[in-house]
């Protein structure tokens, strides 16, 4: 299990991490969320010793993470980068060898990942000759080539088209099913909601929400309410208690309201005013939760 405990990091006056803690177990996938500049990349870099925290610990199976252990982790940094002139196969094999694989193992694994991504024919092409999408695939293979126990991916979905996103999702699911611990950061909350059972949300260097997505939603102090009505909606909404936010998109009105608010009377009132075309009252979406905790 990977555990980050009470991490603090300052750069001069800038606080990057302020008591950041979260954990990922093998066989689980954690969505690591937060607005830009919240400290996601810094936190991920501490796992690889790329940033040394001022305070706090990073442990794997309760032991401090060593360089030797890090060779059994896979990392895809936010800033992608490979040697542009190196051949795809040689590049992956080199990274495999740096992480302790034998020449043969590394070569076989590099080929099998290229094959998986449909790049078997391009194995001797220099990385720079590949399309942007294919370079992204090689970059992902670079994190996977040595069959790591833990995968840390910083914004793996950014810049991917829907098909490539789907492939990425499949691979993350598959790696999780193989018993690996997976952490990835993303701004695509719907995608995270779809993929992850667990999330951690970081804001201003500290974790503001962490846990099982379903339980978090159930326990949230807010509910998501959608309404589509012919009639004077504004007056109706004014009669509702505990409205935190209202968003109107044409005839459809979306509201975040306190979980404690009783909406049964509200539905009756709505039906009195006019024809009720749509009504839904649900636990908040991950986006709702995210907005709630970071604003």
């Amino acid at each position, binding site marked *: 299990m990977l555990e980050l405990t009470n991490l603090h990091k300052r*750069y001069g006056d800038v606080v990057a991490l302020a008591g950041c803690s979260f954990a990922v177990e093998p066989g689980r996938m954690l969505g690591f969320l937060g607005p830009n500049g919240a400290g996601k990349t810094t936190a991920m*870099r501490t796992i*690889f*010793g*790329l*940033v*040394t925290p*001022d305070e706090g610990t990073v442990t794997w199976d309760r032991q401090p993470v060593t*360089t*030797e252990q*890090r*060779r059994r*982790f896979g*990392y*895809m*940094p936010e*800033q*992608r*980068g*490979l*040697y*542009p*002139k*190196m051949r795809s196969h*040689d590049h992956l094999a*080199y*990274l495999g*060898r*740096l*992480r*302790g694989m034998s020449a043969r193992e590394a070569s076989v694994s590099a080929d099998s990942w290229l094959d998986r991504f449909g790049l078997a024919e391009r194995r001797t092409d220099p990385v720079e000759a590949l399309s942007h999408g294919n370079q992204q695939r090689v970059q992902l293979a*670079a*994190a996977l080539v040595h069959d790591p126990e833990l995968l840390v991916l910083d914004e793996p979905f950014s810049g991917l088209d829907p098909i490539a996103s789907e492939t990425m999702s499949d691979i993350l699911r598959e790696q999780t099913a193989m018993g690996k611990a997976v952490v990835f950061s993303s701004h695509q909350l719907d995608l995270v909601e779809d993929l992850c059972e667990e999330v951690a949300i970081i804001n201003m260097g500290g974790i503001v929400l962490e846990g099982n997505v379903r339980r978090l939603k159930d326990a949230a102090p807010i509910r998501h309410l959608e309404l589509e009505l012919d009639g004077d909606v504004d007056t109706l909404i004014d009669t509702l208690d505990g409205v935190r936010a209202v968003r109107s998109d044409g005839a459809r009105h979306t509201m975040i309201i306190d979980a404690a608010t009783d909406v049964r009377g509200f539905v009756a009132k709505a039906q009195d005013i006019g024809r009720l075309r749509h009504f839904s009252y649900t636990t908040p979406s991950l986006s709702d939760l995210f907005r709630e905790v970071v604003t």
Partner: protein
Amino acid sequence: MSSIAIMWQVARREVKERGRSRAYLLTTVFTFLIVLALVVVPGLIGGDTDEFTVGSVGEDNDAIVRSAELLGNALDEPDAEPSVAFEIEHFNDRTEAEAALSEGELDAVLVDGASVIVESVGGFGESAVLSLLQRGAASVELEMIVSESGQAATDVIEVMTSDPLETTTLSGQDADDGSQGAVAYAGLLLLYMAVLLYGNWILSGVTEEKSNRVVEVLLSSVKPWQLLAGKIVGIGLLAITQFAGTIAVAVIALRVTGTFELPSLNFATVANLVVWFVLGFLLFAVMFGAAGSLVSRMEDAQNVAFPMSMIAVVGFFVSIAALGDPDGLPALIGTFVPLTAPFVVPVRAALEAIPAWQYGAAVVLTVAAIFGLVLVAGRIYAGGLLRFGTRVKLREAWRSADT
């Protein structure tokens, strides 16, 4: 996985990828061609006979010209083409001869065996013909003095071109072993070139990893110092290969063409050069590597290389001074400053002008400096590598590695 194994992987990649690159192959071929040209071209030019045409006005000129020709060729190998050949053209009066001289048909004009006219003084060609004619005239005069004294006037030319004094040195050098200085100078020049050329390879290799951001993936698995050390070893191997190849090409070309006589090399001379070549290369490679980690773009790389290039230039000039005065103060100071020692010490050693204790101390100091620099540079490197964008200040890099 041991640090050595990781460094070896890094070094291996450098050798494989860089060694295959067009840039490496081109510079190698290019260097070979330049060396070949340097060896072969002087041979082609130098092998020719210099031909001079001398105008003669009046009497007593022919003997001078003949003596000048003998003097010019006195040191030639028995079977070789003569170095100089003189042709005499007779004129009835001085004005005609001067006209021909100014037309460029003549190299000089002799008048009555008493005066010589050239177009101007100071150029190379003119002074050669002038000095030969002067010495020719002197030997003619000597012959006359000798024969007037009643003795045979033979062998004046031979005496004038010989070194009759036997030379011994206090340092115990072989008298005609002045070639050691030439060897030291050549080694020095090579070190200087290698430091700048291969130092820049390391610099750009490091900057390249930053500019294409691959460094973050690498550093997730290896430590910065392992990456730096592996890079230096890998590029160092390529450098030494290219370098040894260049020297081999030069030696073979010299053997074949016989342009210059190869100085005899003993084991101590070669060991001295190799030791200081390796020390000097390592010293500068470490500094170049650290400098490269401060910038993210190739355009900025040359700016950070400037201080190292300046140090190399200073080292080069101090060692030139040491070549002239191997016991002087600059040479002494240069010996004990690790940054200049690789340039100065091999020169002093080749001239056998350095006490053993100084030599030993210089080696120890330089090795210590390399280790010290590895620590300092490793930290700057570690601090600089993950800071992208603008050039990282030295102090910032140092501090951020600390935290």
